[in-house]
């Protein structure tokens, strides 16, 4: 987890705040989409996303030839969903163990 100071610094910029807000409302997006209709350049958007990533607020992943950016908070949601999925798998396996030994 990033230090709170780094997070506040990352969010203390209008463009970065707008990016976080947009990702929250619209979900994962490419730089192309995030740059569309923006008043700052694509390069500037990229730099801002890197600052946000450094602060642990967003993350990117490759999808084909593009990089898709998403909120890290969503990453935490997915982490919990994944854990629940694995947990249910264990419940089923342990019931099979029970049927085998009892």
């Amino acid at each position: 987890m990033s230090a709170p100071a780094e997070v506040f610094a990352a969010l203390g910029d209008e463009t970065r705040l707008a990016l976080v807000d947009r990702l929250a409302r619209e979900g994962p997006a490419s730089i192309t989409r995030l740059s569309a209709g923006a008043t700052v350049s694509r390069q500037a958007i990229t730099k801002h996303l890197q600052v946000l990533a450094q602060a642990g607020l967003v993350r990117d992943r490759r999808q084909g030839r593009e990089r898709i950016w998403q909120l890290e908070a969503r990453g935490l949601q997915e982490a919990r969903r994944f854990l629940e999925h694995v947990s249910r798998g264990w419940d089923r396996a342990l019931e099979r163990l029970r049927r085998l030994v009892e």
Partner: protein
Amino acid sequence: MSTDRIEKEIVLKAPRTRVWRALTEGGEFGAWFGVKLEPGPFRPGAHLRGPITSQGYEHVTMEMTVERVEPERLFSYRWHPYAVDPEVDYSSEPTTLVEFTLEEVAEGTRLRVVESGFDAIPAERKIRALEMNTRGWEMQMANIERHVGAG
């Protein structure tokens, strides 16, 4: 709630020896876990592998490395959980640790399972594993549709 570990506890109406065998004999382990392991003893350092037999995951090979074997008390291994994407080489990714501990109780055997180390697994891998699982279900539904459509 911790995102790093899963803890399970059950009381089995069976003697400790029976439960231990089900955990550490390859054929028995495979029967309830859902994997057809290549023959080999469960010894510290042993690498065991085999195809998953659970429906929908038949293309997945399970690979585990045995860590500790303390007869009738503790058995642990490391593996990559839900390494379900056949195009990915998981060998450079962190493993989780699965620990089984056994305790004799009045009703039989208390078995505790703890799987830990999830925080170190890249979020991207978790997302992908969930997507593949969803896709697995979609493929199953498509199979069912085709089956009833042909009838």
